[in-house]
């Protein structure tokens, strides 16, 4: 039994408004109203008679030195969870979304329990309810961080928003009343914000930034990068700075931040760069007659990266096929486009765009006139004579429709000559040639390169060199 000393006068009456609540199914908190005549020293003794289940009558004994009265007060206990605490409430203004995190205080209970949460969104100065959402979770005997987000249909900047949550524990074996916890303290999204958020602007722009803070807070200073700017006071809860002629930012952007009393720091980031340059040296050629490879030079760097980088789209007109292309800053700027049967002429347009602008280049080609063969591979030389040599090499690709021109270079210690050989194209094929007028027992180095014969565009690279010694005469 627990003894509680309360002053009571007159003949002791039954304590009023007697109730017992538990927050954790472990400890019971009982309270009652001492009667108005309670001005003589009375000691209350509270004894809990444990019946089979948790639901038991609780007695309060009121008595003093000479009188003792036993009151049997049956009270239905109530399970009322502790008031939850919101850990963090932040707002993504670009997507009108509130992000809420809170601690479910699962460690208060020793076993798993079903918990229900109510999340109430209110807005405007009058704190009208926007929505009330029920969210269920399971308490696991340890504290867990719960997340939730809500998207408004109007921009979050338009008015003030407030969030509060409460909890209900559905303990099946608790036969007393189960009630919702108190509502958590109301929270508003981090109300210290700097605008604009994550804006992208051209180099040389003039930009004004404002820092919004709770009434009663004050700004020590506002900086753009490492430079402090004179504060322009807009209202009791906002100040601004004007930054002229901004220069290109580093990849993660230039921070704009306001330092608040006592030592809070809030900020935003400005991404300063250039619109995409017109893609330069746009070149489209085929290596195999299976795909056409277009490559280009991006021109001036934009100083913008990731989701702000320049995106390229290559399409062929008449908009036969738009081939979205993802390039990353470190890769070479190139893109493959399929060769279509019976199509000779291709009118390419390469579009370059980023948040600051768009540019494009075009190129019209006849694919037959843009053949740039791969390097001859598996190059072999052999002879069974003193004056001839047989050469063989492999070139990937489908050149059935065209003739090839191959150049064979024959060199030895004191001379070098080149031999041009024309031959029918084939598909993924080996090609052969032979060379005569060699000196007996002479040591020569051979290599080969090829190109389209009818419309010369580019030589392939040279094959690797191969040495050969002719037989003695």
């Amino acid at each position, binding site marked *: 039994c627990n003894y509680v000393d309360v002053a009571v006068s007159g003949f002791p009456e039954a304590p009023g408004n007697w109730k017992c609540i538990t927050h954790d199914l472990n400890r019971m908190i009982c309270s009652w109203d001492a009667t108005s005549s309670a001005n003589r020293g009375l000691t209350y003794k509270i004894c809990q008679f444990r019946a089979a289940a948790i639901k038991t009558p609780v007695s309060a004994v009121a008595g003093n030195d000479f009188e003792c009265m036993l009151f049997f007060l049956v009270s239905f206990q109530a399970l009322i969870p502790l008031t939850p605490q919101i*850990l*963090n409430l*932040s*707002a*993504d*203004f*670009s997507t009108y*979304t509130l*992000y809420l*995190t809170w601690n479910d205080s699962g460690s208060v209970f020793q076993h798993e329990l079903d918990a229900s949460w109510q999340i109430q969104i209110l807005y405007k100065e009058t704190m009208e309810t926007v929505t009330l959402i029920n969210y269920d979770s399971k308490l*696991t*005997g*340890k504290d*867990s*961080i719960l*997340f939730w*987000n809500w998207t408004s249909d109007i921009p979050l900047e338009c008015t003030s928003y407030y969030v509060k949550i409460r909890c209900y524990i559905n303990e099946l074996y608790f036969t007393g009343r189960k009630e919702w916890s108190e509502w958590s303290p109301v929270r508003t999204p981090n109300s210290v914000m*700097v605008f604009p*958020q*994550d804006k992208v602007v051209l180099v040389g722009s003039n930009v004004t930034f404002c820092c919004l803070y709770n009434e009663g807070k004050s700004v020590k200073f506002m*900086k753009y*990068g*490492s430079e402090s700017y004179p504060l322009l006071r807009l209202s009791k809860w906002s100040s601004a700075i004007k930054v002229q002629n901004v220069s290109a*930012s*580093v*990849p*993660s*952007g*230039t*921070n704009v*931040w306001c330092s608040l009393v006592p*030592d*809070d*720091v*809030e*900020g*935003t*980031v400005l*991404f300063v760069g250039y619109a995409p340059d017109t893609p330069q040296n746009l070149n489209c050629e085929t290596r195999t007659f299976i795909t056409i490879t277009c490559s280009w030079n991006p021109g001036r760097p934009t100083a913008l*990266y*990731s*989701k702000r980088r320049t995106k390229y789209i290559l399409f062929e007109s008449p908009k036969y096929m738009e081939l979205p292309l993802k390039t*990353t*800053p*470190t890769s070479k700027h190139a893109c493959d486009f399929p060769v279509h049967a019976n199509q000779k002429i291709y009118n390419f347009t390469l579009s370059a765009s980023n948040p600051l602008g768009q540019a494009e280049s075009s190129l019209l080609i006849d694919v037959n006139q843009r053949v740039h063969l791969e390097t001859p591979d598996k190059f072999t030389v052999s002879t069974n004579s003193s004056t001839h040599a047989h050469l063989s090499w492999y070139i990937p690709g489908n050149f059935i429709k065209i003739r090839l021109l191959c150049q064979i270079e024959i060199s030895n210690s004191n001379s070098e000559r080149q031999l041009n050989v024309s031959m029918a194209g084939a598909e993924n094929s080996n090609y052969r040639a032979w060379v005569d007028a060699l000196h007996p027992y002479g040591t020569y180095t051979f290599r080969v390169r090829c190109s389209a014969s009818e419309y010369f565009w580019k030589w392939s690279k040279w094959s690797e060199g191969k040495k050969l010694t002719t037989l003695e005469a």
Partner: protein
Amino acid sequence: PVDHANLLSSASSSSSLSQQEVATKIKQTHRLTVLLKHCSEQLLAEYVRHQGEPFSSPDFQPPAVAVPGLPSPSVPPEPWQALSDGKRLWHLVAAYTTLPGLLGSVLRQQAELNPLASELHRQLEAAARQCRGLAGNLEGIMGALGVPGPPPPSSSLGGPPPSAFLAKMSGYHVCRLHRDWAMRSHEALGLLRTKYPL
């Protein structure tokens, strides 16, 4: 000290490791904390270098912010010293099982904000690996000492950062907490080493 005796008695009953092996494991783990302490300071320096002012200025010391899921190491020294060896190990394991997830979130954000900062990305990946390694060692010691470990963590930085600045700020707090926990674990294992000499 009492808890040392209790731990020792429970250790011999609950695991097959001899005291020699426990002491060896503690020494190895202490060495790992030396590496982690050095790397965590390097990581914080590399991180702020890529975020621009104010992060990169030496006197930038914003108030510590609780990162959901990550216990705070700012328990004052006295109460921290007063904890039992088991309770200290419990806190360390709770932190080091949470940190890899948080460092992973920071890596994803930095891959977006600083795509060219390959050294920063490499250090964030290494830090997460080291934290997993240290957590494993600490759990091994706790098992050897018969101390129950903390529950598995739920560790991520919550929803996508609502802005680039908040992404930079939350990454900064994770890297700073990683450095603070590295210093604390180094101290704690140093203390444990004195109690379990080889």
